[in-house]
């Protein structure tokens, strides 16, 4: 018996929950000018989330998936991306999207039931929210291949959850990208839960990062609540991918502090106390602790920041609420580049019944 291959999975954390550095920090982490926008972005995401949940509770928004407790994953990764890179998100990645220029009212429109929310004025090439779990990994692999073929220095960055790593699409997409050495970075947001199914019952694998081994590529773990670790790992993977080094997988270990979505009630399946304990590790507090240590932050600026973010969120909410529902023609006008003649009669019917519907539902 001979050993033919060895593998290992490494874990990286720079900041402990008290914001103390456990290892020499990467350069960017010593520069408040770099960190403060990240801190703001995490705050904004959290304030947005609580506002969105409130809107849902009052019937002004549909089902919504908050990123509570996982802000460092989206923000950290997006902050390492170049503008021309492409984000291929799941449904919990508005933290990353905002940093890429997606507007908050766009995200609200999407969850409020209007497709125009995915017509981002900002990052025109970014993919829209992807609900069918893990399918986006294949899209990202294809996008990455397009960049490689055209010799563009762009990377496709894909997010998915811990539960999503059980799906064939994750594995197939990864295997394609690896076989093609395509510039793709896959971020597993391991928030420990797939709705009610805890990480341990999702797979017998001890880490999710090790799933990358199946595709012959590297997988690493980072503390997903340490934005320094997240950004650092993302930057390394992005640089490598951009330089032709092929795809990489980062498992960012975080925790879903909220319900799965507004349609979920997590108290049915998990212990409130266990959740409570996780609050000590959350990423905003951690970065604030570090910034306080750096003396780059204080209570006044905190107050100012919260106010400013709240105003921005409120403005987005207003813009969202002021957007009229789409006309019935919207169902037809972007179905194909040109509406086939065969569909004209249906469009006529739709117009004839516009706003005269709703019998029995609505």
């Amino acid at each position: 018996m001979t050993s033919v291959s060895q593998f290992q999975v490494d874990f990286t954390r720079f900041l402990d929950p008290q914001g103390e550095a456990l290892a020499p920090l990467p350069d960017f982490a010593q520069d408040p000018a770099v960190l403060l926008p990240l801190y703001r972005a995490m705050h904004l995401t959290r304030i947005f989330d609580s506002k969105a949940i409130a809107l849902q509770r009052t019937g002004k928004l549909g089902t919504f998936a908050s990123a509570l407790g996982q802000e460092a994953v989206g923000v950290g990764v997006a902050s390492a991306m170049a503008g021309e890179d492409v984000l291929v998100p799941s449904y919990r990645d508005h933290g990353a999207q905002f940093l890429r220029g997606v507007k908050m009212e766009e995200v609200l429109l999407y969850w409020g039931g209007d497709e125009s929310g995915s017509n981002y004025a900002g990052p025109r090439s970014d993919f829209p929210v992807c609900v069918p779990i893990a399918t986006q990994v294949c899209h990202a692999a294809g996008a990455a291949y397009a960049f490689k073929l055209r010799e563009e220095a762009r990377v496709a960055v894909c997010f998915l959850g811990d539960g999503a790593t059980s799906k064939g699409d994750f594995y197939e997409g990864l295997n394609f990208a690896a076989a093609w050495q395509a510039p793709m970075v896959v971020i597993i947001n391991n928030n420990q839960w797939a709705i009610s199914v805890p990480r341990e019952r999702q797979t017998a694998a001890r880490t999710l990062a090790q799933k990358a081994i199946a595709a012959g590529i590297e997988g690493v773990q980072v503390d997903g609540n340490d934005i320094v670790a997240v950004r650092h790992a993302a930057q390394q993977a992005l640089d490598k991918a951009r330089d032709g080094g092929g795809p990489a997988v980062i498992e960012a270990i975080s925790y879903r502090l909220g319900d799965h979505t507004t349609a979920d009630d997590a108290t049915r399946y998990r212990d409130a106390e266990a959740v409570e304990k996780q609050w000590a590790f959350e990423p905003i507090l951690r970065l604030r602790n570090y910034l306080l240590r750096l003396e780059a932050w204080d209570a006044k600026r905190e107050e100012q920041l919260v106010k400013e973010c709240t105003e921005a969120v409120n403005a987005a909410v207003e813009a969202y609420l002021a957007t009229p529902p789409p006309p019935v023609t919207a169902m037809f006008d972007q179905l194909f580049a040109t509406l086939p003649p065969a569909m004209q009669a249906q469009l006529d019917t739709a117009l004839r019944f516009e706003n005269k519907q709703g019998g029995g539902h609505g």
Partner: protein
Amino acid sequence: MAELNLVEAVNHALAYEMEHDPAVLVLGEDVGVNGGVFRATVGLQARFGPARVLDTPLAETAIAGTAIGMAAMGLKPVAEIQFSGFIYPTIDHIVNHASRLRNRTRGRLSCPMVLRTPSGGGIHAPEHHSENPEALFTNVPGLRVVVPSSPQRAYGLLLAAIRDPDPVVFLEPTRLYRLFKQEVADDGEALPLDVCFTLRAGNDITLVSWGATLQEVQAAADLLAAEGVMAEVLDVATLKPLDMETILESVTRTGRCVIVHEAAQTGGFGAEIAAGLAEHGLYSLLAPVRRVAAYDVVVPLARLESQYLPSVERIVDAVRKTMEAS
């Protein structure tokens, strides 16, 4: 006899059959501790244990595929797909294996499994949660496709589906899960799988539908009755195999038919019924056979949903047109 809504009826049928047949087991995402996202499986894991009520990893292909392996080895798995828009990854296993195992092995192995999923729109759900995928299955030989439209029928048809020795796709109209309650005797009585149900008798026109849209069809029938048009309302219930006899018998009497369904019109299962009429009922037809269905567009997000779903207004309009023709 308890008053149950549709999702409770599903739950009772599952519990009844698990109680009486140790081969029955339930698997799917969040069906265990959480009791299913719509609570269809609530209480089952506590009662029958985690070995018979399995929270699977998140992978629909394997949910279908492992259910086939279980069924071939003598279990009767009832697999839940959490929302209809996520049923597509199961299709390979359903078409290539579940529906063929008996034929492929000349009866040596078989596949007594049920694939349940909530189906259809009307609850302002997120993207992909409001699909009507029945036409993906109705062209597949060796499969049964069942859509209940009331708590009673959900109970009796689901029991029949679980007991059926062959695979059944069971589409539960999400919109009806909690819409109304009905007396359901939890007595283990199954309903027949291969027949249409006549929900309302009438001699002027036949309205054929299934699942959630029967709500609008019945409301339309009420309105029409006030106008003096007596509609017969048929619930297809089992789309495949289709009980065309009952539909033909009715249309032979009425001479007119409107078919209503929530899936997109073109290539939808309504076409099969219209085709059956064009072949076997042509001489009885006094008027064109109209379909009231969703437009051939992507299921819209919530803000346009009510403009997308076939409405009472559209049904009444189609019936009036059909009555005018001669």
